[in-house]
């Protein structure tokens, strides 16, 4: 079900209310904006015989705006896709409050402030002995004053850039504010139960889209090359945005782990084996397959190590759905047993020697970290496998790439299981 209110950024409202943008859907309306900037810029270039370097800078500016807008629209769409009606009352209140703040029209205040600062710089820098881009164009075109159409074009593009710069910082501040509120909720045991780790991960995945949007600001750097001071300020601004956004993503990752109930997190960290379920699709019927396997949890994803010729690898190659089940196996009173079931999707880091080698080249930092975690958690196992290397069938020898592979499990749903309950409870 869609959220009760369609949350949109100011620019989305402007596009929806302005012909011809209103006739097109994203990303085509953004593409139209890019086309308008291109054709207008080209017309000015040929009409006023502007030096080529300014045309190039303008193209970079328009392209940067295009990428930035597309990414921000994508971010907004991702947040709008959250099925708010599915959420429980506490999470719903939290999420709606976040959306209300994020899509509030007051976001333009920072943008206007940035625009005013740039205008101040344009009009007053010469009094401090600094030349700005307007003076450079004027000098290069050997004119006393710039044509009004060109000035309008420059100011419009400047405002568009400032709007995005302001919106980016506004979004990051709202994200950080949301994180602090979420941390407060998670500290309260009675409220923590309402928050799901996978929902927090979805928020993080959305924030990553915005994180990438900031990098489109780098396309504006050639524009600033014409004006060193502007370029320095722009780079400083982008670095600041990256820094804050990185803090936000790291903080969300910490909160993701905090959202897993303490007892279950301890169980996950202390258990040696997990039952791994996959689906066998070798026959005409789909038959489940389940075996106990060593695993590690890195605070975000689960990893298992298995033989390249194992049934799990064959199954996951065809269908990447996977389930882990970790339980306490209470021996004194089995009715006190409890556990956690994690459903997710898998990623195999090489399903044969050739692809394994490729994955090692591409993901060596990840794989080395996973290997270290396995060594730390199962030193005896690795030791046994090395000592009795020759007695083990080749398929199960600890030879990365040659006989073994790593499988990453990205959790999508967590379930709590208790022996004395009929069904598992999703959290």
């Amino acid at each position, binding site marked *: 079900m869609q959220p009760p209110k369609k949350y949109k950024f100011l620019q989305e409202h402007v596009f929806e209310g302005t012909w011809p943008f209103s006739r097109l859907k994203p990303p085509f309306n953004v593409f139209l904006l890019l086309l308008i900037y291109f054709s207008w810029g080209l017309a000015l270039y040929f009409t006023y015989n502007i030096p080529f370097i300014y045309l190039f800078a303008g193209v970079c500016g328009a392209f940067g705006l295009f990428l930035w807008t597309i990414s921000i629209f994508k971010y907004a769409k991702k947040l709008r896709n959250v099925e708010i009606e599915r959420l429980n009352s506490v999470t719903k209140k939290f999420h709606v409050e976040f959306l209300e703040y994020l899509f509030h029209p007051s976001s333009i205040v920072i943008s206007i402030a940035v625009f005013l600062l740039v205008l101040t710089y344009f009009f007053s820098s010469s009094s401090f002995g600094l030349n700005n881009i307007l003076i450079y164009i004027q000098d290069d075109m050997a004119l006393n004053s710039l044509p009004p159409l060109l000035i309008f074009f420059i100011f419009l593009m400047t405002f568009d850039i400032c709007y995005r710069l302001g919106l980016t910082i506004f979004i990051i501040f709202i994200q950080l504010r949301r994180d602090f509120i979420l941390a407060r909720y998670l500290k309260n045991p009675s409220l923590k139960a309402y928050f799901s780790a996978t929902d927090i991960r979805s928020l993080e995945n959305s924030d990553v889209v915005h994180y990438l949007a900031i990098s489109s600001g780098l396309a504006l750097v050639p524009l600033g090359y014409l004006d060193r001071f502007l370029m320095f300020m722009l780079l400083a601004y982008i670095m600041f945005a990256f820094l804050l956004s990185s803090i936000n993503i790291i903080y969300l990752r910490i909160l993701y782990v905090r959202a897993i109930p303490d007892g279950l997190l301890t169980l996950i960290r202390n258990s040696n084996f997990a039952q791994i379920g996959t689906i066998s699709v070798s026959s005409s019927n789909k038959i489940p397959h389940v*075996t106990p396997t060593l695993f590690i949890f890195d605070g975000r994803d689960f990893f298992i190590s298995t033989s390249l010729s194992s049934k799990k690898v064959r199954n996951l190659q065809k269908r990447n*759905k996977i389930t882990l089940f970790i339980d306490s196996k209470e021996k004194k009173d089995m009715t006190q047993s409890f556990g956690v079931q994690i459903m997710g999707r898998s990623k195999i880091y090489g399903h044969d020697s050739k692809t394994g080698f490729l994955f090692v080249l591409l993901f060596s930092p990840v794989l080395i970290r996973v290997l270290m975690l396995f060594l730390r958690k199962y030193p005896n*196992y690795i030791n046994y*496998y090395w000592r009795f290397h020759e007695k083990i069938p080749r398929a199960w020898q600890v030879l990365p790439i040659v006989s073994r592979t790593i499988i990453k499990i990205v959790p999508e749903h967590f379930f709590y299981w208790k022996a004395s309950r009929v069904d598992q409870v999703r959290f």
Partner: protein
Amino acid sequence: MKVVCELNGQECLLPDYISQFILSASFIYCATLNDTNNPQIHPLLFVNELGKCLLSFIQNINSDVIKNLQRHPYLALTIDNTDPENPFSNTGIMIEAIVKLSTSNQHIQNCFELLREKYGDNIVTKVLGIDIDTNYIKIQARPLKIVYWKGPFFQTYKCKQKKYT
């Protein structure tokens, strides 16, 4: 329990140590397919029906296991004896099976009695509840394939259909 199987194309009986391993286990991990085609794992109490190569258990009619099996009558059952120190001591069995669901009160009651015999009143009542006559379904799992492992060594037995002795 004598089960006729096929190991590497040769007809044989399921070795006693495997039958005993199955019979001595307490919880069994049962994997079914849910409505989104994800494997779903549940630990279950189970019994072996005397003289038959059938594993039986009962579940609430509203449970996920029943809903899944009504849609898709295949399951995988795993019993393991894991050693966190020595990988060569790990033993386990995975059984791929097809199921038959029964709503007959007599079947359910028989299975319930066998479960009480095996686990005792306290455990069965706590796990399954007391009101066993209504809302329960008996599940009979007929093995299609049994995989036994000890450390990194595996044996796969294909069960001969309808040849139970």
